[in-house]
Structures are given as C-alpha cells and as structure tokens.
C-alpha cells in the first residue's frame, strides 16, 4: 500500500515538475488534420502538405522578459504528422501562463549564422533578405470543383512589417485551426504570400487566435 502511495506521489510530483510538454494538433474546422490527405468538411475539402512554424519561448508567467540569445527556439515541422509534442520550460506551479513568440524575433535575425533549428538548412530562411520564415503553410483547397494550390510563407522582421506575434499559452494541449488562419486570405482570392509586407503581417496576426484548448 505504501509503495502505491509513493508511486502516486512520485507521479504527481513528476506531473508538476516534468510534465512540461506542449501538444499541438492541426485542425481544419475543428476536424483533426491528416497530413497529405484530403479532409472533407461540410464546407470544403483541403489537403495540407506542409506546416512549419517557429516558436520562441519568451517567458514563464506574467511578465515578458527581454528576448535574448538563450531564449529557447522550437521549430515545429508538420509534414508527415499533424500533431507534435515539444518539451517546454517548467512553469512555476503558482502560475499558469507561458508566452510564446510565433516566429523569430528581430534581435535574433540580426545575429550571425546560427546552428540547430535556426540553421538555414531547414528551409525556413529567406536567403535573399536575411529573414527567417516564421510560419510556412502549403497545400491545396478545392474550390468550385477545382483544386487550388496555396502557399503561405509568412515572415518579416523589419518595422513596419514585423510579423513576430505573441501567444499566451495557458494549457498543454492545443488545436491550431488552420482554416481560421487562411480563410480571410481565401476570401480575398489570395492563395500565395511569399515575402514580407502588409499581407504577411495581416496573415501573421491571425495565427495566435487560431490556437484553441483541446
């Protein structure tokens, strides 16, 4: 009996201290996505072939600290699976918020060549203007019986088109509804954004609001 209690206690402690995983599931109209496969909803059909994004863990609760070189950076690469777990910094038990930056902040852009997830080899770097792509989404959508390719490479770190966005993360399991992000673009017949500018900025602003608790 004591052994069971101890195990439960250890599990509880471990849950508190080490259960710092963030789960992100891609969805479309709240329907879980399967990468590379057509998803048919009552509204439309879509295939998501690639969704990459950078997340920078800016701060544990309540106060946003200045970004620095040691800020953890994650590259979420959804290309074969539509759900990803990443280990994130422990959150103080008294608090419940993590603040993420979606993308790469301008100070890190100004640094020299980086390694790891910031290595340009990952295809998230615009070589022609020294800029990381914060969010990359590619696929096809069926519109009026015709499949239309779409390609959104969202980034830009220079004012006034800095696409770095903030997202406050309260829980550990989230859906990211891609429909909510791209639908305004589709409504305006926009299927491609490939460089920084006002269109990329407006697109980027929608990303934090597309995260929903599971």
């Amino acid at each position, binding site marked *: 009996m004591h052994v069971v209690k101890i195990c439960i206690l250890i599990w509880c402690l471990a849950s508190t201290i080490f259960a710092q995983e963030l789960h992100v599931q891609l969805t479309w109209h709240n329907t879980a996505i399967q990468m590379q496969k057509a998803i048919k909803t009552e509204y439309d059909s879509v295939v998501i072939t690639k969704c990459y994004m950078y997340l920078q863990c800016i701060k544990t609760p309540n106060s946003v600290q200045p970004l620095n070189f040691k800020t953890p950076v994650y590259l979420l690469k959804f290309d074969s699976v539509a759900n990803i777990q990443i280990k994130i910094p422990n959150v103080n038990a008294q608090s419940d918020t993590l603040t993420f930056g979606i993308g790469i902040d301008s100070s890190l852009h100004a640094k020299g060549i980086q390694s790891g997830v910031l290595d340009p080899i990952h295809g998230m770097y615009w*070589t*022609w203007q020294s800029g990381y792509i914060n969010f990359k989404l590619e696929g096809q959508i069926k519109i009026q019986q015709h499949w239309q390719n779409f390609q959104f490479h969202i980034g830009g770190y220079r004012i006034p088109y800095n696409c770095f966005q903030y997202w406050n993360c309260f829980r550990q399991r989230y859906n990211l509804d891609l429909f909510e992000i791209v639908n305004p673009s589709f409504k305006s017949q926009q299927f491609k954004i490939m460089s920084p500018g006002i269109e990329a900025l407006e697109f980027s602003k929608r990303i934090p609001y597309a995260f929903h608790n599971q």
Partner: protein
Amino acid sequence: MVLVSCSVDAPVKNPVNDTPFEFLPENWPLPKYRFTENQISKDRFELGRALFYETRLSRDNSISCAGCHIQNYAFAQTDHAFSHGVDNRVGTRNAPGLFNLAWHTEFMHDGAINHIEKQPLAPIANPIEMDENLTRVLEKLNALPKYKTLTRAAYNSDTLTSQRMLWAMTQFMGLIYAQHSKYDAVKNNTNGIHFTAAEQRGYDVFIQHCNACHREPLFSDFEYRSNGLAPLPMLLDSGRSHVTGLSKDKWKFKTPSLRNVALTYPYMHDGRFTTLDQCIEHYRRGNFNHENLDPLLKGAITLSEGQISDLKLFLNTLTDYTMIYDRRFSDPQLQP
C-alpha cells in the same frame, strides 16, 4: 558552438596581418564585425578561401564566388555589367568589389543581407546566380576528402556544416582589407609619400563635392540613396524598397565605396557606366527630377574639365595594389 570553440587550437590571430586590425589606421572607425564568435584561425581562413573558389557551390558546379568577384579587380567583375549565373542566366545587378566588408552592417546594393556571415547564402540560392541549395552544397562538399581535411584542420571535425562553412567564408572575405593605397600612405605619412599637386587638387574637389556621401576613410557612409539614375526600363529595379517595402526607399541603393574605384568598373548598381568620366558627367549634368532623389544631389555639381582630370587622378590613389596581388587571397589551386 562552445564545443567547436573549445576543440580547436588556440586561434591564430589574423592570418593576413598577424593580428586583427593591427594595421588599422588611426583615422579609421572600428570595424562592425570583429570575429568575436567566429574566432580567427589560419585553418578556418584557408577553408574559407577554398570555399570562395569552389564551383560546387553552384547547381551545375560551374560557378564560384570568384567567378564574379575577381581579385585582380578588387574582387569585382569587369567583364560585364551583370553577373552571369548557371545555364547562362544573367543577373540584374553589377557585382561589387569585396573589401573592408567587416565595416559593413548590410550587404548587397539594397542592403538585403543583414550580416556578413549570411551573405553567401544569397548568391548560392539565387536562381539567376548559383541556383543551388545549402543541403546539396554540403552533401557535395562533405563527400570530398579535400573538405574533410580542411574542415578537420579548422574545426576538429570531418563534417562541414552550414555554420562552419559560412564562418570560414566570413574569415576569408572579412579579412580582405583595402587600406594600403597611396591615399592611405599619404594619410599615414608613410615614407614621405605625398600627393602630386594634381592629386591634391583632386582631393580638394573630392572633399568639396563627393565626401558627403563617399565619406573617407571608407569612402562610403553606407547610406541608401537615390542618385538620380533613371531606372532601366527592362529592370525597373526599385532598390532598397524591395527590402523594406516602403515607398520612401524606392530607387535607393547603398552608397558604394570609392576605394579601388579605378578597378571596379563598370559603375553604378546596374553597371551602366563603363568609365569614371561617365559617372562624373552624370553628377555634373545633375538637375535630376527623380522620385526620392537625395537632397544632396539637387541641382548640379559644377566642375571644370581640369577639376575632373584632377579628381580622377585622386580617385586613382585609392587603388590598393597590395590587396589585389596578395597571394593569400588568390585561388589556392593555382598556386605552386
């Protein structure tokens, strides 16, 4: 990064001049890039040198950095206005000279590249230049015993990564200094060298009419300006605004350094002028009616024929023959 730093021998100081900036003249500003993380060593410099002359950086293994940046011409390209890429593709801008890059904070005529270490990525990936991607470049190079040897010597590892590659290339390009011209000798009171009377008059003309933008001692203030050039209809190159997306930056290009200007023809971002006379005439004619024209270029610059002649003689004193004949910067495969 820490492991890499710890694993190499104590870094040799500047392999070109023995110690970084030892010969930095008193009237020069400190360089913007100081190799702080990218510690200088002779082996890393040599790796960078090999990479600079490496044609495998291009998709069809035909073009190296040196293809458009030729040492004899201060690492500029004089054969044609626009650089040539793979499959006989032609670029849209003139290849600038490469020297004193450690004093730049932004690169390319429009400043699109924000760090010297990232600069080589642009021509490698550009479809009208090398048209290659970084993954394939590294695969090709890592397959060669030559690069295993060079990388091991430089980083105590057989594997060339993008960071190691770009750090090494930065060591090579960032250590090409143009600071041994006659102008420098005069300024430094070296061995009693003086301007001739005509060169001195030319210098006076320069100070009066050119130095506001081509500011000594680097002969550029590195600002972006519209200098009254009408855009070529076939290109309509909007310059800096292509990077910033701002209309106020339309038609602006970075002020080029005039060091080695006698060697770096053709001139302007699109290489439209082949002689210094044409450049000077452009400013002498003046009276541009041009969107975002730089305020300093309103009106015209009045110069007599004699002043033009003197000015050209002065500009010739900015050539650094030490740099262009320095074998440490030449193709290592061509050396005995």
